[in-house]
């Protein structure tokens, strides 16, 4: 068993829920179509060339990450900021808590960040009575609903406007409305106070730019801009893999990110943040920190093949393209990352033994790799992880029957006469009444009709044909 029964049950429920299926399929279809329009050869002739460049830049950066980390740190400090290294979520939390305590901060605001979702930062801070308020509309809704993000770029994609109205009604004092525009206004009004009160603003980073010591953030709502400039302290929390060497590399990545993610040519806001407010400047935080988090990433760096998983720029295109994500949705994936990228990085971050089914939750159709702007060969990594899972299970003595069946298969493939005989016997058994109620055939038959083997295999028919010539 790769999957726990409750996980299986949850997936079954999602697939059988017409409301969620409709929302999921249409939302991903919209994003998918918008992306296709803006990367079409007529719209962006250099698209494939950009992908190749992006892939090369990421490959180069990760192969020389030590150098770029040092360069980045030196440049951040030259601008009066500070770089903090954190091995895991605990160390990120400890740093933030320590600073908040020193500065007497009781509340902080956050802009959208998958990295902080990965380490459950909000829960960790709340545990220590430090309130963290999400300011991205989707994340705000999710936070009020005590839910988790459903999609890397569209966290509340599974909620209808009625759902949002319910959540607001329950948590806020404003009159109920089901109009998305009005809902956004409600959120904005409630959040505005928070921005003014907050002692710290926490953001993620889309890119860390080594030659400028800058953090680049893209967004559509302007909340990240406020988060990083209104409070007196700005802390950017980023995985070390977010590094790119030069500011001009952004020309490649920004073009790809917005197009792949939301089908926009560019996001509404692109912020380039390098250090605290300097003498004579009217705004910006007084203190600027970049927390560079490892949390399993250096382990991936060590593997020349699977290292490419770290090229990801979190555009979400692979989710929208993935026929499995489009059926099972975001919440059936453990961890913060869902869809194809989640299926390859979650097992690598947490170890393959924890959710061994993840790399198997794919038909290997390759739609993800086709749309990935940095050309991560996701199916290849899934296959490599499957191999690791099976080796791990063999070492533990799990999955005995399936392993034996494949060993038998491998043995037979080198013995053509026996292979043909086994085929003949298998076909006869499969034609017998009741065969469809056993083993894998029963799983097959649970959703579709079982095909009957032919009375005479191709081999046998061919032999007869040759004889009668």
């Amino acid at each position: 068993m790769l999957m726990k029964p409750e996980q299986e049950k949850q997936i079954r429920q999602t697939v059988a829920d017409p409301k969620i299926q409709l929302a999921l399929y249409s939302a991903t279809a919209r994003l998918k179509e918008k992306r296709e329009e803006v990367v079409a050869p007529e719209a962006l002739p250099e698209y494939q060339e950009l992908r190749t460049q992006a892939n090369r830049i990421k490959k180069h950066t990760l192969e020389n990450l030590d150098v770029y980390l040092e360069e980045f740190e030196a440049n951040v400090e030259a601008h009066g900021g500070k770089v903090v290294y954190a091995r895991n979520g605990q160390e990120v939390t400890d740093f933030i808590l320590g600073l908040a305590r020193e500065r007497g901060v009781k509340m902080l605001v956050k802009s959208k960040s998958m990295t902080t979702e990965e380490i459950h930062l909000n829960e960790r801070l709340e545990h220590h009575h430090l309130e963290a308020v999400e300011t991205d509309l989707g994340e705000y809704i999710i936070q009020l609903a005590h839910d988790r993000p459903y999609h890397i770029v569209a966290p509340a994609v599974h909620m209808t406007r009625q759902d949002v109205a319910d959540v607001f009604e329950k948590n806020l004092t404003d009159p109920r409305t089901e109009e998305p525009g009005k809902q956004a206004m409600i959120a904005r009004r409630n959040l505005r106070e928070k921005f003014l009160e907050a002692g710290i603003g926490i953001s993620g980073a889309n890119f860390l730019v080594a030659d400028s010591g800058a953090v680049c953030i893209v967004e559509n709502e302007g909340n990240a801009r406020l988060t990083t400039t209104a409070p007196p302290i700005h802390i950017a929390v980023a995985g070390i893999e977010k590094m790119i060497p030069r500011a001009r590399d952004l020309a490649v990545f920004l073009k790809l990110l917005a197009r792949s993610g939301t089908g926009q040519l560019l996001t509404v806001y692109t912020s380039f943040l390098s250090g605290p407010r300097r003498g004579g400047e009217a705004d910006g935080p007084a203190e600027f920190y970049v927390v560079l988090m490892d949390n399993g990433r250096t382990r991936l760096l060590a593997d020349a093949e699977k290292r490419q998983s770290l090229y990801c720029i979190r555009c979400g295109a692979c989710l929208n393209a993935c026929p499995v994500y489009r059926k099972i949705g975001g919440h059936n994936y453990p961890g913060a990352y869902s869809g194809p990228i989640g299926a390859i990085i979650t097992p690598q971050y947490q170890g393959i033994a924890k959710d061994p089914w993840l790399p198997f939750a794919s038909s290997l159709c390759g739609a993800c790799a086709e749309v990935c702007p940095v050309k991560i060969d996701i199916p290849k990594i899934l296959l490599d992880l499957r191999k690791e899972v099976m080796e791990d299970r063999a070492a533990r003595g799990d999955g005995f029957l399936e392993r034996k069946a494949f060993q038998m298969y491998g043995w037979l493939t080198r013995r053509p006469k026996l292979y043909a005989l086994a085929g003949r016997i298998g076909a006869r058994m499969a034609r017998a009444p009741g065969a469809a109620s056993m083993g894998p055939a029963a799983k097959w038959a649970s959703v579709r009709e079982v095909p009957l083997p032919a009375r005479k295999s191709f081999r046998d028919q061919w032999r007869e044909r040759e004889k009668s010539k």
Partner: protein
Amino acid sequence: MPARVSIFVTCVVDQLFPRVGMAMAEVLERAGYEVEFREDQTCCGQPAFNTGYREDARKAAGHFIRVFRDAEFIVVPSGSCASMVSHHFLDLFPKDSSHYEEAEYLAPRVIEFSRFLTDVAKVEDVGARFEGIVTYHDSCHALRELRIKEGPRRLLRKVRGLELREMSAAEECCGFGGTFSVKFPEVSGAMARTKLESILATGASTVVSIDSSCLMQLQGVFTRAGAPLKTMHLAEVLASR
């Protein structure tokens, strides 16, 4: 003396759809080729490879190489199995091994059936006749690993009596995915039903593909849903007259 081609008949075709193999041989012969079937052939190893059992896949691959090493062309009625040999055999053996070299030598000669017709034999009209409205399903490995998209459609357009209609979800996966279909049956079935909706919207009565395993999946779901649709391998359509 016509050129000689060897055919690799996939496990699914051998056991479940032998008529597809026979039809392929017939079309190749009509195109002027002498067809040989090497009886020692077994499997390409894909089931084991895709499920994570590399060692067992290596055995099948090694045997495949031994059987076909001196064949000039090996024509395969499946994009998926053809791609297993031409792409993934290289993932199975270490770069400096003799098997790797042999796999590299074999790769360009293992050719999916429709591509063999359009690119090697250079025929598009094989003299077929088939009355009906047909829609074509792009199988994933043919489309994304072998880049086969237009060839099968060109062949279909030349069939007398046949009307080809595109479905909106032509490139979406049918949900088969080998052992995926039994490890995640609900998801697999739901994927096929999405495909079904898109097919029904075209008004076609027959779905054609170059991979029998996709068709097995789709046919199973059509029958379960009571949808009046038929599935046919491209070779069967091209062999009709």
